[in-house]
């Protein structure tokens, strides 16, 4: 309250100080934080300071203003630097206005879809960079994307500041058939043993514990329709659907060469900068460093900027290309390096299976020397496969083979 009204710190000296204090009290001048040293240091409201003049004259004390505090004085101070404060206020206003718009849409997790495809779908929902954030409905975007692309198994639209982040996970290949409604069978992608099978649509062709080969039909897309005498009159075709898990045991054998070609950088490198503004592209390079046509180079490209400046239709692109010269030299793995190389190949094999959605259950591997130059990485991997292949139902399969009626012979 004191700060809002504005107050001052002042010192008074000389004359009769106690009488001065009593007169202040008598005239209703509120004073606080009195400290006595050689002078009396005290605080009072700014408006009361002018009323001290007759009191000081009567008591022969001399007031001395030390500091002004409070909102009225702050406003006065700000008024003197109005250009700075109005600029700051303008900055805050612009920031507030601009942050109420959507400025960027990012996509992640897509494999088969291109960024352009998703971007076109999202723009079709009237969601675009430069729109008001208040009109953004993330749930509706998620729902609509799932409707447009049923093969997307999971989608998330998240609003982070002025950026809309869309993450997707793509589902099974067989969904394509489901989407189009094409009749199809579910087939085994590997040789293995059926661990579990449950049919949602179609006819089961295998049982739990049965061994299957790659390409065998597990759930058929043909549903037989029988008449009263249990004769199949026709086949109803459907897109087979169900949950199946196959236990697959795979043995592998992979050679690991002890002699290999090693890439050695010569230390010569050339850096090239590429800048692009709209369709205009310019490359900058040290003219004294030339690329040797007979040499081999690794090109390392670093994209420094790739942006569309919204709402202007302007795109900016900048990249740094580094050409590193190298030569291939013969090299031999040491025992440790050989072990690491074998382990790397083994890990890569398992990572590949995991990426394909397989559940690893057990795996073993050993390295054996075949000859001086070659070692063999041997092992066995067991995994559960839940992702089945699909094959379209052919017309021949859907046709019912009826016994031909006996033909009448002309006598």
């Amino acid at each position, binding site marked *: 309250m004191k700060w809002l009204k504005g107050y001052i710190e002042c010192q008074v000296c000389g004359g009769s*100080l*106690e009488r001065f*204090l*009593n007169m*202040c*009290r*008598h005239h*209703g001048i*509120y*004073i*606080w*934080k*009195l*400290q*006595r*040293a050689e002078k*009396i240091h005290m605080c009072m409201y700014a408006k009361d300071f002018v009323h001290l003049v007759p009191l000081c004259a009567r008591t022969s004390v001399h007031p001395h203003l030390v500091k002004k505090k409070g909102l009225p004085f702050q406003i006065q101070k700000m008024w003197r630097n109005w250009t700075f404060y109005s600029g700051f206020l303008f900055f805050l206003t612009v920031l507030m206005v601009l942050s109420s718009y959507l400025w960027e849409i990012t996509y992640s997790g897509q494999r088969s879809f291109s960024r352009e495809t998703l971007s076109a779908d999202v723009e079709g929902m009237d969601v675009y960079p430069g729109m008001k954030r208040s009109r953004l409905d993330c749930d509706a975007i998620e729902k609509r994307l799932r409707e447009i692309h049923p093969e997307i198994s999971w989608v998330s639209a998240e609003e982070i500041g002025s950026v809309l982040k869309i993450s997707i996970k793509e589902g099974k290949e067989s969904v394509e058939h489901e989407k189009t409604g094409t009749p199809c069978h579910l087939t085994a992608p590997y040789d293995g043993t059926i661990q579990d099978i449950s049919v949602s649509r179609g006819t089961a062709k295998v049982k739990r514990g049965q061994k299957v080969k790659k390409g065998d039909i597990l759930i058929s897309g043909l549903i037989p329709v029988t008449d009263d005498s249990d004769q199949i009159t026709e086949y109803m075709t459907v897109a087979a659907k169900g949950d199946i898990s196959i236990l697959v045991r795979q043995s592998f054998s992979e050679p690991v060469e002890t002699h290999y070609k090693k890439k050695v950088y010569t230390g010569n490198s050339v850096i090239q900068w590429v800048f692009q503004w709209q369709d205009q592209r310019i490359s900058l390079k040290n003219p004294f460093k030339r690329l040797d046509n007979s040499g081999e180079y690794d090109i390392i490209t670093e994209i420094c900027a790739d942006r569309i400046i919204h709402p202007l239709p302007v795109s900016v692109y900048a990249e740094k290309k580094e050409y590193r010269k190298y030569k291939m030299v013969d090299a031999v793995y040491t025992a440790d390096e050989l072990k690491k190389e074998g382990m790397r190949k083994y890990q890569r094999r398992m990572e590949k299976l995991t990426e394909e959605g397989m559940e690893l259950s057990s795996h073993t591997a050993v390295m054996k020397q075949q000859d001086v130059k070659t070692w063999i990485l041997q092992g066995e991997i067991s995994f559960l496969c839940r992702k089945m292949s699909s094959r379209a139902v052919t017309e021949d399969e859907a046709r019912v083979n009826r016994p031909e009626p006996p033909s009448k012979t002309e006598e």
Partner: protein
Amino acid sequence: MKKISEKLDLAPDILEGSTIVSMYGNQSALVENYKSIIEYSPSLVKLQGKHVKLLIEGVDLTIDRFTQDDCKILGNIQSVQVIPI
């Protein structure tokens, strides 16, 4: 006034204007119903009441509030002395 106050069973400060001193430990003292300040230094605050003089002695004494109703004294208070007039 004293007799009326006693008869009506009122607090003495209402009719008599007795000075009230409230101490909060030895760090703070609140004086009400006083008439004026007689002397003020970092070691002594002397106040004038209606019937008494009040001497507050201590170290680093400051007056936190000085209004028509009360006076709040802060510091290391060592003694409070009441001298009847």
